[in-house]
């Protein structure tokens, strides 16, 4: 819809495509990162009975903007012993990987970057680019802390992709589609049509599915938490042991690219989880647009619900971050291989049996 409108407006396919691809960045990712960094600091501060940033703007809400301005001004230091080419590509790759995921995430019923049938598969595949970027950054920095962080990160992301994938498979098995827009459209109506409550069909199997879906939801939430390197799974950038992991050697804008990618990833993961299990952009109870017969209001409402769900899960991520201590490497692997994967497998088998019957 947006593409058609832009095409009519500009008359050029390339131009409208470019504008459309930049919309999520400037409308969603950048404002979200600016707010999320501030929120992170405020949430952490208040959980520790502090105040957090208070100086720039009302309760410091412009602090991130000030930090961004500072980061832009900063000198871009490239150490002598680094592998220059890889060092410079890595932040771009990491950000590209996390931003590419937004191409297949439907923001509203009216806006989807690219309506590909392999939506969720594309997202999972393109997230692999992030691992490459992180490993590249760690290797090119020529620094033991960076390399250690990057290797831990790669090991962690790859192991936790398995439970994520298994849970995605559960949803795909029930719905029979990989397209996130179709998936979201299936969960329309009221909140009991969401996948976490057994999906849109109504019958005895729906009630059997509910506990299984809740287990699946918890597993995917935990494993995506690990995929974006958040506490309690933040050993790749464990400040107290590894300086700051793979981006130790970065400064200025390249560092902020990593930062941006990290927060964009947080939101992307939350959006995927909500699209798979909590109806994506769908409202839990009807729309004001339907009630007032204003069809143009519905996409805006949907965008609001989408952002709301995403921000809610990001807030829970922050909440967990400031509650839990960091896991050890062996604990991290134990959680994945001994708990999440077997349970996800069992879940997958049972759901498979139910769908067959």
């Amino acid at each position, binding site marked *: 819809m947006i593409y058609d409108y832009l095409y009519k407006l500009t008359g050029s396919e390339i131009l409208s495509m470019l504008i459309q691809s930049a919309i999520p960045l400037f409308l969603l990712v950048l404002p979200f990162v600016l707010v999320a960094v501030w929120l992170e600091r405020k949430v952490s*501060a208040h959980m520790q009975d502090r105040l957090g940033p208070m100086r720039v703007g009302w309760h410091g809400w412009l602090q991130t903007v000030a930090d961004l301005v500072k980061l832009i001004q900063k000198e871009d230091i490239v150490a002598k012993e680094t592998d220059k080419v890889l060092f410079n590509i890595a932040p771009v790759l990491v950000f590209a990987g996390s931003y590419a995921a937004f191409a297949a995430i439907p923001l509203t019923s009216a806006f989807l970057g690219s309506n590909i049938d392999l939506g969720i598969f594309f997202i999972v595949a393109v997230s692999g680019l992030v691992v490459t970027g992180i490993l590249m950054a760690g290797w090119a920095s020529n620094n033991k802390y960076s390399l250690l962080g990057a290797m831990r990160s790669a090991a962690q992301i790859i192991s936790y992709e398995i439970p994520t994938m298994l849970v995605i498979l559960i949803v795909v098995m029930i719905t029979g589609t990989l397209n996130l827009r179709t998936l979201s459209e299936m969960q329309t109506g009221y909140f009991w049509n969401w996948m976490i409550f057994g999906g849109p069909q109504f019958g005895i199997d729906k009630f059997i599915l509910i506990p299984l879906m809740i287990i699946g939801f918890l597993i995917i939430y935990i494993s995506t938490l690990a995929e974006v390197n958040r506490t309690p799974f933040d050993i790749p950038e464990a400040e107290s042991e590894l300086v700051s992991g793979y981006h130790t050697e970065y400064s200025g804008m390249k560092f902020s690219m990593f930062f941006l990618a990290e927060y964009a990833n947080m939101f992307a993961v939350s959006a995927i989880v909500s699209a798979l299990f909590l109806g994506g952009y769908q409202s839990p109870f009807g729309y004001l647009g339907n009630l007032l017969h204003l069809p143009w209001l519905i996409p805006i409402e949907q965008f609001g619900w989408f952002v709301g769900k995403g921000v809610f899960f990001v807030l829970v991520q922050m909440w*967990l971050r400031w*509650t839990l201590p960091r896991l050890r490497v062996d604990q991290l692997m134990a959680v994945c291989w001994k708990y999440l994967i077997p349970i996800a497998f069992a879940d997958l088998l049972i759901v498979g049996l139910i769908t067959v019957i």
Partner: protein
Amino acid sequence: MTDFRNLQYLTLTETMREYLSNIWKAFSTILIGMKVTFKHLFVPAVTIQYPDIKLDLPERERNRLYVNMDDCIGCDQCARACPVDCITIETVKALPTEDLGKTSNGKKKALWVTQFDIDLAKCCYCQLCVFPCPTECIYMTNVYEFSEYQRENLLYSYITLTPEEIIEKKNNLAKFEAEKAAKKAAAEVKPPEKKMAEPVVKTSPLPNPPVNNKTNDTQKEKQ
């Protein structure tokens, strides 16, 4: 966490029970922790927005020294009490004709204080200079924000006399002493050699030896 050394002795049900209890423990403890942090979200912050809001200092706080020169009699007791020698006092005797007035607690002033420097970079805030002061003119204030970029700026001078006045006082005293010595010399038929030598030194108008002066003054004060 399963202990691998004991694993072989556990039956399947026991292993299973441990596995499930681990999961249960993980979720329940995480929820307890989350409850705690959620409660703290609404606890008022303990942060004090420092330059805007300042805490009340305790009653006997020790901060920057201040000297009320109106009351100072130049007795040098604070300088001698100071364990780090950060107070420098120099005085000039007043002429008998001059009246310096009295301090607020009734002590008669007999000395011009020509130098009263406190090097606050050296000061250790022990308050030992405050106690011996007979007129209670040196005391601790509640000012603690006086950092400087240059260390010299921490050398505080409290004198009220202008440099011209100081030279004038010194000259006056030197003249007076010279006259006195001349009178003495005239009165005594045979002046000894040493006594003649002293006035000659003292007639020089510029810096009269402070050590000499100080000892004289303090002796006088004690009497």
